[in-house]
Structure formats: C-alpha cells, structure tokens
C-alpha cells in the first residue's frame, strides 16, 4: 500500500496512541521521508516563529506532553535537534510519529540529526533491540537508519524577534521578575507547564533592585537553584547591555556543537552528509561536541567530537552573523542552560531522562519579528550591534590565563562589539508525563540501579 493523504493521517492517529504501524507502512513512510529530506540542504533554513526542542530519546509520553505544552503540529512550528531514539521504551513510536508529521507537514516541522541517529549507537542503546522486539526482524530498524542518513546536520533560524511581547499569563509561585513593571522589551521568559510565568528578564535591565534569591521555579518542580543572577537555566546577567533593536542575528541549531574543521556555516553546507555518522571529522563533531568552560578546543571525554570554549563560540557567532547557537546533546537538570553570555544554549526535552534522572525538560520558543520576517542575513559585513562591549569571563583571556584587562581589550578588538542582540527567548519547562498514564511495560525493565 502507499502511504499518503488519509493513510498518513491514519498512521499519525495510530502512532499518537503509541501503537506502532505495520512494517510495510514504515517502509513506505521512510521512502517518502527520504525523498523529502534529500531535497533539504545540510543546513535547513527555518523562519521564526519556531519552537526548538532537544533530545527526546524514545520517551513517547513525554513527547506528547511536549506537544501539549508547546502546541500541536501544525499549529506550532517545531525544530527537533535530534536524538529521537534510544534509551526510552518507545523510540520507534516517537521517531515514526515525528517522521509522519514531517511527511504530512514538511514546512511545519524540521528534524535534524543527533548522534544517536546512527546504526552503531542504536545497536548499543536500545533502538535496534526495540525494533527487533516489536517487529521480529531488523527491517524497520534498517529503514529508519536509511532515513537517519538523510537528516540535515543543522538548521538556521532567521527572522526571530529580539524581544518577546509579554504574555498576560499569571505568575507562578515564587516567580522571579527582573524587569520594570511596564517593560515591553522582554529578553527571556520562562513558563511552567501550566503556562504560568516562572521568571522574566528584560533586556539590559539592571536587576539589582529586584530581590535576588527567588529564582526558584515552583516548589513542585525538582529544579536545583542556579547560582547565577539570571532566571533558572539562563546565563543572563544585568550586564548584557546594548541598544534595543528588532532584528536578531540568525540562530544556528545543531545537535552537539562546533567543529575545529568548521569556521563558517557554508563549510557545513559543503559536507557529504548522506552516510553513517563517521567516527571523526566535521560531521561527527557537529553531532558530538560540547561547550565547556575552557579556552579554545579540548578533547571530549565522550571519545568523539571536541569540547569548545566561549572564545570559540563568540568568534564563530561573530563571523557567521549569529546571535545564538541552540544545541541539545547534554542532560541539563533545569531543562535548558545558557552559557557564555547567552551566546549558546543547551535545550533538553526529555524530562526525567531514562525514567531515572529526575530532571525537568524545556523547549525554546522564538517569536517572529514582523518587520523582518524571512529575511536571510548572509553578509559578514559590519555589525550594527549593541552598545556595551563584551564583559568577558575571567577564563577567556587569549593568553590562556585569567583574563587581565589587557587581554580583554585585545580579545574585544578581535571580536568587535557584540555581533547581535540575541533573540527573545521563551522557555517552557515541563515535567515528565505521569507514570500511571505511560503504560509502562509490565515486564520489569533492565537494571536501573546498582542493587
């Protein structure tokens, strides 16, 4: 049979209730998805508004919770940054549902590749076994792996607004508000799953007049208290400075991070991506690397990809006219974590990861800038950016030591002023779907703990 039109809607309906579709439909779906994905470049262009999501890892019920919190497809545009499969019990249903939605609404949902979308990794971390268990053969796993090879490596979001229009949502208990009462220039807003405001931060607002230690989400959320001044999970400080504008630089979305072999986005576009994730090289790095509090590049303890520091991110963003890199790949207990003066953010969308970690999840909403929608900024020309210069972290001096005033000045002259105002960022934080509704397998899962 062919899958399309009403068949596709039926498949979506069936997958939404967490029931796998027959093998011949999977084959057809994967074929159609490949036809679609082959047309996409290595870096997909995406217009704001869009909701950016991190790792899912087969936690199907939590994916449904994500859609409930963030809005359903096609009403909300989504960009998923990979790691759809492995670890959770429902990799198959989660990935196939996302793939169905991609085929059904190709302009509404973007899927890019994570390091788990790989033959080698899925044989260790569960997706292969799950396919074998649910279909009795490895065919479905093979079809899915063929799709993995065609997934884009990154996405470039343009047309995002630099500020959020404030919602009139109610305040959550212990909300942390760092902006003047009449501010209409919000930089960051964090909402809980009930849509209540957990924190708000205005651009350039000096938050000193606001009582500090209240950056706790509602007490029901198991979120550790961040030690920084901004809202939970953000690196926002009162020094982010700058003038108000309404064109944000573009936002690069990639699963892992940067590569020492890639200094421009155009170099990503030149890669031959239609293959298994290699063990090394630029494509591997994009899917495996992590930002870290170091200078320059470092070896990754994961054995693949690299660690990269604030200086690398700032140079890359400046050179490529980016205001932000959004990436996933690392579990963060608060669901999201901004680093390096909010030049990079980790978004994690698998709550209570592996049904064990107790973390919350987040998605990142970028609003549309009405005056600048769809305008693709590609020049590396002069930066009309913000007012204040860099406030450099003490660890990013160019000499590898603690940044002295001299070093800071030199780095500042290399980087120029801050390239772009970051986009306005609305984070929605959510907990795991309740256990009782999961239909957890009756059979005892593998050893979760050391007993």
């Amino acid at each position, binding site marked *: 049979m062919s899958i399309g039109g009403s068949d596709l809607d039926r498949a979506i309906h069936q997958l939404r209730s967490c029931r796998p579709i027959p093998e011949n439909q999977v084959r057809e779906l994967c074929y159609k998805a490949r036809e679609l994905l082959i047309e996409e470049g290595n870096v997909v262009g995406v217009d704001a508004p869009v909701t950016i999501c991190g790792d899912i890892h087969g936690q199907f019920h939590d994916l449904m919770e994500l*859609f409930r919190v*963030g809005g*359903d497809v096609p009403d909300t545009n989504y960009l998923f940054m990979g790691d759809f499969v492995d670890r959770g019990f429902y990799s198959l249903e989660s990935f196939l549902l996302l793939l169905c939605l991609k085929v059904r609404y190709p302009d509404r949902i973007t899927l890019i590749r994570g390091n788990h979308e790989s033959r080698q990794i899925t044989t*260790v971390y569960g997706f292969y076994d799950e396919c074998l268990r649910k279909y009795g053969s490895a065919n479905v796993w093979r079809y899915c792996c063929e799709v993995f090879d065609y997934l884009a490596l990154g996405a470039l979001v343009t047309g995002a607004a630099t500020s959020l229009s404030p919602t009139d949502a109610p305040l959550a208990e212990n909300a942390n508000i760092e902006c003047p009462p009449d501010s209409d220039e919000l930089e960051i807003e964090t909402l809980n799953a009930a849509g209540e405001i957990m924190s708000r931060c205005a651009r350039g607002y000096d938050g000193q007049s606001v009582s500090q230690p209240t950056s706790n989400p509602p007490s029901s959320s198991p979120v550790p208290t961040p030690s920084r001044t901004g809202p939970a999970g953000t690196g926002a400080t009162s020094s982010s400075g700058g003038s108000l504008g309404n064109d944000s630089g573009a936002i690069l979305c990639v699963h892992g991070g940067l590569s020492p072999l890639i200094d421009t986005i155009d170099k990503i576009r030149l890669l031959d991506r239609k293959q298994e994730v290699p063990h090394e090289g630029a494509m591997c790095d994009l899917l495996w690397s992590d930002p870290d509090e170091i200078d320059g590049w470092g070896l990754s303890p*994961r054995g693949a990809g690299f660690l990269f520091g604030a200086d690398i991110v700032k140079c890359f963003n400046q050179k490529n006219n980016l205001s932000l890199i959004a990436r996933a790949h690392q579990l963060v207990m608060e669901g999201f974590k901004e680093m390096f003066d909010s030049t990079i953010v980790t978004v994690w969308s698998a709550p209570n990861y*592996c049904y064990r970690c107790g973390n919350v999840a987040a998605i990142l909403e970028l609003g549309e800038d009405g005056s600048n929608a769809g305008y693709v900024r590609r020049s590396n020309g002069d930066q009309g950016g913000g007012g204040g210069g860099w406030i450099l972290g003490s660890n990013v001096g160019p000499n590898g030591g603690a940044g002295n005033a001299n070093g800071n000045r030199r780095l500042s002259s290399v980087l120029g002023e801050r390239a772009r105002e970051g986009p306005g960022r609305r984070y929605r934080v959510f907990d795991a779907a309740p256990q009782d509704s999961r239909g957890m397998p009756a059979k005892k899962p593998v*050893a979760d703990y050391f007993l």
Partner: protein
Amino acid sequence: MSAQQIPDLRTLLGRGRGGGLRARGRGRGDTGASHQDREALRDNAVKGTDQDAAGSRVSCVELGYLHDPYAKLFATQSSTRRLPLLNRGTYVRTTAIDLLIDKFITTSPDSPKQIVSLGAGTDTRFFRICEAYPGVDLSYHEIDFPANTAAKLASIRRHPLLFTKLTSGPPLSLEPTATSYHSPMYNIHALDLRSLASPPDDTPLPTLPHLDPSLPTLILSEMCLIYLHTSTVASILSTFLETYIPAPTPLALVLYEPILPNDAFGRTMTSNLATRNIQLPTMSAYPELADQRQRLKGYGFVDGFEAENTNNIWRDWVSDEEKDRVAGLEMLDELEELEMLLSHYCIAWGWRDGGAAGVFTMAWGDTQEQDG
C-alpha cells in the same frame, strides 16, 4: 488535532485502567494487605536484588570490564548486556571494594584474617580471592536468606570450577536441600540477618560456626544493610562489635550504598525502587558522605571512618592506564548521567584497630579520600 485536544495525561490519574489507585494497590499488595504480607513482599524484592546484581556482574565480565570466570556460574538469568553506564558503575563498585580487600589481605600476609560478607548472595569474591591468593590464611563467611544460599550451594555443587576451591577431594557431599555450608575456610550461613539484631527477649544469638572472635575481621555490606531499618542495622553491627568479634580484635566495615536521597535524582531513585517494593531506610538516615563517616564512628569504628562517592573513586583510585583500558571497552555516550549516577553511590569504610599499629590502619591509613 490542536493542542487543546491533546489529553492532559495528568487527568487520567486515578481513573480508567480498571480503577486507578485501587487496581494499582491490588497489583502491588499495598492496599489492604496485612503488615506481614507487605513485609514478605519486601523480603522477596530484596532477595530478588541478588540476581539483578549477578546479571550486572556477568555483563561486565563478558565485555571485559572485570575478570571473573565464576560470575556466570551463579547467574540464573540468561546474560543481559547492561548499558555502558551500568557496566562502568559495576566496574567501579567491584574494583573499589577489591582494592580495600586486597590491601587488607596483603597487610601482614602471613597472619590469619577473616571476612564476613553480609547478604553475599551470588557474590564470587571468595572464589576470586582463592584464585588471586592461593594458600591465603583466610576464614570467609557469607550470610544470606536460605533461599539465596540454597541456590548458591546448588551452583557450587554443579560446577567443578567452584567446588574444587572448597575441597581437594570429590564434589561436596551435601544434602540437595542444604542451605548452609561450613568449613574452616569457607562458610555459608543461611539466616535472616535481622536475627543478629539484639533480640528483645533473651533469645540466644545464632551461632556462626568457624567465626573466630580473635581474627582481624572485615565486614562487607555491598547493597545489603541499606535494606534494613536504621536501628536494626545498628543492632546487628553492635552484635559483631561486642559479641562475635569483641574488642580488642581489629574489626572493619566496608559499605557500598546509595546516597543523596534528597535531590531530584535521589528522589526519583527512591520512588522508582519503591515501585519494585524496595525500600532504602538507611539512605535517608545518612544522606551525605559526612553522615556516612559519622555513622561509622558512631557504631564504634573509631580508628578510621572514611567515605567517598564512586564518581570520585573512579577519578582518584583508578590508574590512567586502567581508565583508558576501561573507556576503550564500550563507547559511553551518557556522561552527564554517569557522573550523576556514580555520585549517588558511595563506598564507606571504617575500622576499630584496638591499638596504634593495627592491621586496618596499616592497610587503609593512606587510602585516598577527598572531602566531599
């Protein structure tokens, strides 16, 4: 489908699926079950943890983390490959305890020593020690529920690799239903550990054949005492400290247990294990490493009381060369999770030497520990 049409899964709580709470209660025996039923369920769950551990050990052996030809002889489950982070955790746990025990055995190697393994289950340590230290003068005791000891003895009878460690002659001649085994070198005591807690009346304590009150003794609790109530644990240990191995005989305790029950990971651990009927009473009593140290001191292990989480133990106790070897065995992607998991388990070790230059001070006095 719009977002409003997506069911809020929370609203499904308590209805559907045949009656929510009531159905769940029946399934687990939590509701309406008598106190004895609940206790029996919990005991069975605890007995079941042993095969879980055995399976994890086999997974580690098959992938080359650990050398242990005996592990698979005891495992009843067909081998399940565990996730890399669990293999790494099992490796760290086993290696850390091996290190403490090796230091104990090799300190004054010619003087006789004693090890008591609580809730030993299918642990292979005795057989591994025999292999590593042939001719060692050691009296080894294991204590566990009769159901577990019977299964262990059955495995020993079946496999020459095991029974030849116990006898140079023919296979062990034991009743097929035997639950205990006694010899000068190796003893399996089939008893409920709780019977070693001081009885309220004057019921005599069980006799532990071949347990020598004068030999320097190491008590090992690898995920065992954690399942008992705090006061019961204190009482069992005081039985050892005062009755079975009274001062001035050197006596030490090595614990492997989870810690940090109050953060998000710890709370999730507690509730996940509760769904398997596994409770960890002492975890909340000794939540931090500092509590574990004070606990050891409080029991009477006053000459040394140390604790370290297994994340730091991996970092500090394992050589770089060995780290490279282990890291090369499996691709390990889940680094943040590994760190979190390992930091929620600790090794705690304390001792009473009854003298300045006791065997444990010599063995462990310089063992690395970071303040945590």
